[in-house]
């Protein structure tokens, strides 16, 4: 196998792993096609999925699993959300914040993450889905200061849900 071929196939395998996030039936129907599109769009010599691609595919897979595919963002898909205006700002209905905390984080750390994000959410700074890590440009831009706990550099996937 040539070098180029092996690089391509390792990228292709990585895309296939990413596509595992889709529900099985959807993957059976669309998986090979999505991988094909990702491969077509890959830069020459690219070895790993780009961070943007990972977020894009995981978001799409999640929307598929939640049965809200077709909306451009989770916020729009959830009850009270609207394709044009985004989520309804109804202050009486409490929002529910779902976080997937950094791997290895203990309960106390997860609680801190949740408080930080809830504060940012109240201030209207974040829209789901959102990937926040201790030192990502995204978290700096949103002026979220992630708590100093949990293993460094592992991002937390943060989703907001509306009741």
């Amino acid at each position, binding site marked *: 196998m040539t070098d180029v071929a092996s690089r391509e196939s390792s990228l292709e395998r990585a895309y296939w792993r990413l596509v595992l996030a889709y529900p099985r039936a959807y993957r059976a129907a669309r998986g090979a096609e999505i991988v094909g599109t990702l491969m077509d769009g890959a830069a020459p010599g690219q070895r790993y999925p780009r961070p943007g691609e990972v977020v894009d595919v995981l978001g799409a897979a999640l*929307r598929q699993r939640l049965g809200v595919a077709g909306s451009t963002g989770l916020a729009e898909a959830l009850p009270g959300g609207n394709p044009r205006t985004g989520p309804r700002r109804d202050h009486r209905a409490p929002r529910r914040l779902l976080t997937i905390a950094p791997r290895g984080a203990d309960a106390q750390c997860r609680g801190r993450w949740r408080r930080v994000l809830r504060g940012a959410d109240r201030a209207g700074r974040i829209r789901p889905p959102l990937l926040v890590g201790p030192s990502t440009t995204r978290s700096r831009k949103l002026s979220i200061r992630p708590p100093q706990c949990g293993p460094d550099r592992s991002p937390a996937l943060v989703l907001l849900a509306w009741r």
Partner: protein
Amino acid sequence: MNPPLQEPTFFILTALSNEPLHGYGLIQAVDELSHRRVRLSAGTLYPALDRLTQDGLIAVTREEVVGSRLRRYYELTDSGAERLAAEIARLTENAKTAARVLAARTRRTGKPRAARSLGATT
């Protein structure tokens, strides 16, 4: 009466009016047709294709298999062409109405653009 098409959908149908395209070809065509404004990705393209296929506005025309990957080509159906024509008519009508109303305003005030503050319009 059909609801207005969302912009990505509008450009997908426009791109397919020209020729059948596969996923990545569509992403590029939409990018170009929209002057880089509508940027589709794998994650946003396929839900749109699912919906358009379900509604019968587009259909798979052929498939190419390369290893474990797949290139599926889509074409515009007759009903897709009708839907796009209806949307073009709607947009044209809207633009005409807006142009007429704005022209009347310009004749009245001599100012084509919105005044800077509310006070200035009186």
